[in-house]
């Protein structure tokens, strides 16, 4: 056994679990990449480490400097964990509508939290962080939505791990947030094997964002545009909260896998893909485990009330 010298050395090299019992097609395998195994609990550990390492190397982040970052939760949690170990104060700007557990984890890792109105969704947090970063040029603004280290972390680590462990992969399915996972893994896989299909799933997050004054307040991550997202993705689909919860429950019941709600959405995308193809091997990302969503009642309440409480929070 290796003895690790720092918590961030535990990031990456996550296992893959065969959950093909959940495939609607006996000729299609479904495999789950368990990113909840990362030390701060999500796939975002990879990009947090990559962005901080890169900023240190370029001299954009110097000892004791304050970091500011907008996040719907997981990136902020991952950055706060690393910042706490490297001596950087960190301010995370989050929508009020994140789950209570995400707030608690930010506090546990010592982040200062600034809340933006829930009805503005993540777009509101991005706007406020951009303003504050402009007013405080002395702070480091690594900006996950526009930082190439985000997709690059997946291009260099997640993608190669998947291809090494599953050389016969035919489809890759992941949630679309900053687009970093899909851009990085997707670019890597398609460079090696052009035929691999890249499918994105997303929640209907924009449906009830009341704080948008007009569509001009919309947001497409710069990372998505720079990495040619529209050409890279083969399909993109909405998975609604009810179906996401149903699939999250299936993962527990059929595979003993206690995954977060966005992983249920990704499984729904896999099942849709599996039903449409003759045969194949689908890999999807279990972005995090279920702990941060217990307060939604996703596993314990009846489906209607679990859906209602999930609609009120940001879980991607």
């Amino acid at each position: 056994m290796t003895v690790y010298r720092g918590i961030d050395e535990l990031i990456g090299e996550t296992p893959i679990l065969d959950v093909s019992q959940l495939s609607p097609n006996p000729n299609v395998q479904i495999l789950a990449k368990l990113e909840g195994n990362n030390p701060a609990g999500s796939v975002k550990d990879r990009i947090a480490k990559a962005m901080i390492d890169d900023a240190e190397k370029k001299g954009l982040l110097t000892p004791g400097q304050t970091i500011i970052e907008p996040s719907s939760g997981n990136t902020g949690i991952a950055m706060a964990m690393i910042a706490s170990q490297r001596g950087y104060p960190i301010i995370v700007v989050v929508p009020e509508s994140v789950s209570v557990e995400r707030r608690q984890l930010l506090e546990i890792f010592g982040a200062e939290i600034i809340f933006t109105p829930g009805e503005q969704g993540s777009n509101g947090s991005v706007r406020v962080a951009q303003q504050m970063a402009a007013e405080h040029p002395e702070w480091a603004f690594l900006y996950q939505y526009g930082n190439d280290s985000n997709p690059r972390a997946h291009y260099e680590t997640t993608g190669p791990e998947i291809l090494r462990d599953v050389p016969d992969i035919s489809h890759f399915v992941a949630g679309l947030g900053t687009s970093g996972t899909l851009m990085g893994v997707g670019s890597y896989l398609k460079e090696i094997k052009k035929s691999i299909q890249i499918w994105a799933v997303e929640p209907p997050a924009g449906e009830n964002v009341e704080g948008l004054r007009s569509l001009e307040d919309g947001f497409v991550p710069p990372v998505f545009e720079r990495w040619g997202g529209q050409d890279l993705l083969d399909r993109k689909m909405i998975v609604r909260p009810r179906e996401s919860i149903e699939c999250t429950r299936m993962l527990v019941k059929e595979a003993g896998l206690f995954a977060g709600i966005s992983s249920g959405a990704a499984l729904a995308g896999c099942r849709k893909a599996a039903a449409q193809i003759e045969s194949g091997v689908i890999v999807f990302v279990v972005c995090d485990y279920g702990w941060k969503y217990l307060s939604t009642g996703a596993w314990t309440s009846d489906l209607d009330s679990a859906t209602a409480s999930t609609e009120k929070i940001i879980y991607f």
Partner: protein
Amino acid sequence: MSISVRLPTVLRPHANGEARLDVDGGTVGEIIDGIVRKFPGMATNLLDQDGSLHRFVNVYVNDEDVRYLEKMETAVVDGDELSILPAVAGG
């Protein structure tokens, strides 16, 4: 052929507050045209000057983003549902 269209909160003021519309058409483009004919205030919200979909607007047929299907030419049939959503951040 009448297709049910779901509107996001941000667009409802341009459609007399309606959350759902029934619009006739056989492709996504025809449905969007139908919406704009009925509610001219929608035009600048949905389309760019060249008539393509606004970059901050995503349109889905049965929850599949039409940019990855046949875009405005994507066919719709009776019973399909079209959803319009603003692009928002995650992460």
